[in-house]
Structure formats: C-alpha cells, structure tokens
C-alpha cells in the first residue's frame, strides 16, 4: 500500500516549538492533512513520544506514530533517529543526555514541557535540549543503528544545522537510511543535492513542524506492506525510492 509520511514533527518539549504542539493537536492535524505515518522528533529528547502515540490511539485512530529524536552532533548537524519502540527510544535518549555538553541557560528548562496524551503537565525536561552532544555524526548514526533505529540526516538542504552546509560534503563513512529535505525544497535544489549524496539513498520530505500551521499535506509517499516500523525500514532499505507528488514517481 502507498502511505504518506512525515517523519519530523516536534512537540512542545522542544524549546523552539509552540505551546500548541500538544499530542492531541498534533495527531489530529497530521491525520487531517492526509499523513498516514509520522514520527515524534524533539531535539535531543523523547519525553513526549509515548504521549503522542497514546494520543493517536485515542484521537486519531489508524495514524501510525513512531518514537524518534533529533540529535545534535558535535559538528552541530541535526540527525533524526526513528526508533522501533518507546523503550529503545528511552535508552537512546539516556545515552544522548549523558553526552550533551552545554549546561542549561537561564529559564530554558521552563520551555521543555513533558505532558501526557491529554496534555496534562507531567514534568520539565531537565537536560538543556538546545545544546550539542559530543558525538560525531558517524557516532550518532552508529548509536541509533545500535538500537535498530533508522538514521536520517535532517533538512540537508538548509543552512542551519544541515549536514552539507556544516560539513561541506557527504561524509564518506556516514551510514544513513535516508536523507531529509524540507517540504519546500525546489526541484533545482533536489537535483543539486542528488549529486552530493550516495546514489541509492532515498530522499524524504518532512515538515520539521514546530507549530501546528507547519503541518501540511505530505510530499513523501512509500509503498509499504503495512504501517509497522519493520515495513518502513524494509521499504527504505529495499526499494530505495520515494515518490513525490510533483514527479508522480
């Protein structure tokens, strides 16, 4: 079956995301715009992933939600890890947290909210999520893979925290399952990027939504057996292609 994907969505746990990014708002909007499978990817944290998964069961039945994380490498490159379970996401998170190098800046923690599926406050995340880890991009990739996760360098077309902008070239030893470009990337940008990345790596479009209005109709579609994590992983590995609505695939 053909499923629409958006594997990069923040919640109110990310300091730079809007307070409206509570689980129920996210899952309803995501379903409304026609996305079948999403991932929760806060900066260096997974604290709201389970709540979004539970919220989907309650308020957006049928929507596939995977736990994920947007890790900041020591080169200040953003890399998405999509994980098979909340448990593996939590284990990965604890490794990430012990490698965050920046101490909290004043008042920053008050913006890092962990809530339940009905948006009741649970706690503040005490690690400063906007800082970087001391893991290189390769180490981030290996770490995510060690938890059977999917590795996707985020918004490689962008100037802030993008792989190509920060590192100039695609690192020769970096193992990825896909790369992400922003949902507004132009065809000319894609043509240029294609020449910079290994030929068999799928390119995914994601919203990187920080506010509800950032959640827009999907641009990436994959043929999957079902909405399971394993099917997604298989599809990225084997088919290695993504249709986008412009070229029609």
């Amino acid at each position, binding site marked *: 079956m053909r499923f629409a994907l958006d594997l990069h969505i923040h919640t109110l746990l990310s300091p730079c995301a809007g307070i409206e990014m509570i689980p129920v708002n996210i899952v309803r909007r995501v379903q409304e715009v026609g996305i079948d499978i999403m991932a929760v990817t806060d900066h260096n944290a997974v604290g709201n992933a389970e709540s979004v998964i539970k919220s989907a069961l309650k308020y957006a039945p049928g929507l596939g939600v995977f736990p994920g994380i947007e890790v900041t490498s020591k*080169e200040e490159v953003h890399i998405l890890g999509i994980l098979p379970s909340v448990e593996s996401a939590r284990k990965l998170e604890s490794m990430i947290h012990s490698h965050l190098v920046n101490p909290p800046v004043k008042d920053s923690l008050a913006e890092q909210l962990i809530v339940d599926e009905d948006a009741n406050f649970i706690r503040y995340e005490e690690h400063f999520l906007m800082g970087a880890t001391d893991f*290189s*991009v390769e180490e981030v990739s290996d770490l995510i893979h060690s938890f059977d996760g999917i590795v996707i360098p985020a918004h490689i077309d962008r100037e802030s925290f993008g792989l*190509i*902008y*920060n*590192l*100039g*070239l695609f*690192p*020769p*030893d970096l193992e990825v399952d896909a790369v992400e470009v922003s949902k507004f990337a132009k065809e000319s940008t894609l043509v240029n990027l294609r020449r910079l990345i290994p030929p068999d790596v799928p390119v995914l479009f994601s919203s990187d939504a920080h506010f509800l209005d950032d959640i827009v109709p999907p641009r990436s579609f994959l043929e999957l057996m079902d909405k399971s994590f394993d099917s997604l992983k298989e599809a990225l590995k084997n088919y290695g292609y993504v249709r986008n609505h412009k070229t029609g695939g």
Partner: protein
Amino acid sequence: MTFRELLGNLPLENLGDDFDLDKSPRGGYVGDLLSNVMRFAKEGNVWITVQTHINVIAVATLVGISGIIFPCGVEPPEETIKKAREEHIALLTTKLDAFTLCGKIYELGIR
C-alpha cells in the same frame, strides 16, 4: 613566515611529527561551516577552525589549504590527523582563542 616560524613565535603545538612545517601560508581564513570555507577560503591559506570532523581534510585539500590551526585547545580525532598526514596538511593546536590567534598571526605578517 613558515609554520615552523609560527611555532617558534606563538604558543602552538604541532599535532604530528611528520608534518611539513616549512611551507609558508599565504593569508588565512576562519570558519567552522565547511560549505562556507569551500566558497571563501583561498589556496595557500592557513585555516583556523574548531571543526575537527574528517571532512575538514577533504575540504582543505579541495581548497589547497596549507595548514590548519585549531584554537581553544581543540584537538582533532586520530582519523583526522591520519588523513592530514596522507594529504600533507599540517595540523597545529593552541590554547589561544580564534580571535587572539588571528590577531597574532596577522601581526607576524601573514595576511
């Protein structure tokens, strides 16, 4: 002014015994975002950066950088040093911050 002379004049440390220090850098560039360095650094420049990823050497080779100085006590990983040896790019480190380092090497005549 060669890298060897820079070492003699400033609190720098050589990161490899076999680097060719008798090259003289022509001007310099400061930058940590490698795409920016690829665009704006010039052949023969000494490059000042806190970026230590192995891609630094690939970019230095593309541009024709003569040597790299890591400020703030930053030291690159072994794989970066190894690659620098292969590509004959001298690597130095210093406790000075980037601003102070630039000022001092500029004063010494590299510009």
